[in-house]
């Protein structure tokens, strides 16, 4: 199996139903679970594509500071 094929199949409807059971959701149904599998796969693929280096020192709370820092000085 190629790596791309392996990644494309990383999440399927059955796995989504299993995760839903784990957190206590009633059954989602095959169509909804398949849609969720596709949506989650796309989202996580973007994270994987952008996380190309260590984030060991990246603190999410820096985001608000960064917004202020990147602004023009107040008038």
């Amino acid at each position, binding site marked *: 199996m190629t790596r791309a094929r392996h990644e494309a199949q990383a999440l399927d409807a059955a796995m989504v139903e299993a*995760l839903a059971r784990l957190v206590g959701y009633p059954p989602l149904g095959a169509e*909804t679970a398949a849609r969720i599998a596709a949506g989650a796969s796309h*989202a996580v693929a*973007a994270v994987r594509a952008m*996380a190309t280096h260590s984030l060991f020192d*990246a603190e999410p709370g820096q*985001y608000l500071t960064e*917004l202020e820092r*990147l*602004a023009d000085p107040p008038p």
Partner: protein
Amino acid sequence: MIDPAGATLVEAAGALVRGELSSEELTRDCLARAHRLNPALNCFLRIEDEAALAAARRADAARAAGRPLGVLHGVPLAVKDMFYDAARETSSGSAIRRGFVGTTTAATLERLKLAGAVVLGALNMTEFALGPTGHNPFYGACHNPWNPAHIAGGSSSGSGAAVAARIVYGALGSDTGGSIRLPAAANGILGLKPTYGRVPRSGAMPLSWSIDHVGPLARTAPDLARLLGVLAGHDPGDPTASRRPVPDYEAALGAGVAGLRLGIPGNFFLDDVEPAIAALVEDALAVLERAGARRVAVTVPAAEHLTELGRTVVYTEAAALHGHWLRTRPEDYSPQVRARVATGVAIPAAAYAEALQLRALLLREFCTEVFSACDVLVTPALAIEVPTLAATDVGGSASMWTTIARLLKCVAPFNYLGVPALSVPVGFAPGGLPAALQLIGRPFAEGRLLGVAAAYQRATDWHERRPPLG
């Protein structure tokens, strides 16, 4: 004497100050339009005649007593039905929250009232603000006043339609993936997603606490500047609200665009814009060039990934917010919204955390690369002509999902980054529906965006056109 249906917010406020008419007269006029047009538009979930007229009378009495309330004194507005009000229902466009009354009032709604605004009622929206078209299975779809067969955009669908139809002078909306800018674009008005933290979110229905933005919709740049000046500023109830001083946005409107560098993205945003929209965007850029701006080419880093990075965060936080109801009341969601809020169950926690870690890094990269080359980034707000309700309904055309993806393509990336983005109407596509430009700025550069929009509106008259249902 002003024509109430033709006046802008600033003009109406001025007429009230001069005593040319009373707030009660103006409010009655707006209420009459609301009752006449709402059967066709379905932009209001509730028209609150008695409360609005009582507020108008209080405004008139305060003025008679020499106690002006503020810069919106006596001006009729309306709010998306997701801003909690301790005095009335807030449904969030859902069945689950039908009849819900908040324990507090949203900071933004409180600020509008303190500034003297008269709230006419609660505006239609997509269920739990999750969807870009304005369909709603519980309360009915909102219709576009330029052609009711077409979408009003979402999720702030009623906000866009009610302002465009001249029922109210401005409206409050929220934007987690384009939900202010899309309805503004689809209805031919202005809509501003401010910088994350500029306008407080406390008391607004949460969809994703990291990505939600609250902002105004109005017909002109001066109207929007006035509303933003009221809404912006620190709020102790919102830990993410900025303490940065609020500038005088109305003073920034006359800055003009001479020498301003407009960044035209060479990647992603213009890849598949419909020719009619591309032509209108080109015309708008030419207007700004004649006013003194110049174009420069820019590349937007990571553009193709920003929307999905944002969705990683939104899906996860929405699943957490809706977890209890997903376990106990799944049948009370529409199937589409249930699937959207449940998607977070399949996002690994590590991916969510990484998406949040990446945010500051990608914001820095975006600002460094884009704003070293230009002052304002420009894209279409909508890459396609405003579609019909039928074409975007569940089970509609085979291309429905493609159409919905194209609706979001240009607007959603900027929610993840959190930079300000403003949708500005720039004319009409061959089908008669509006088209719009999107202006994106540095964090907290709302004044600059409003200045560009004001310069454009001084040179054009699109904002003076009235829709057939208006």
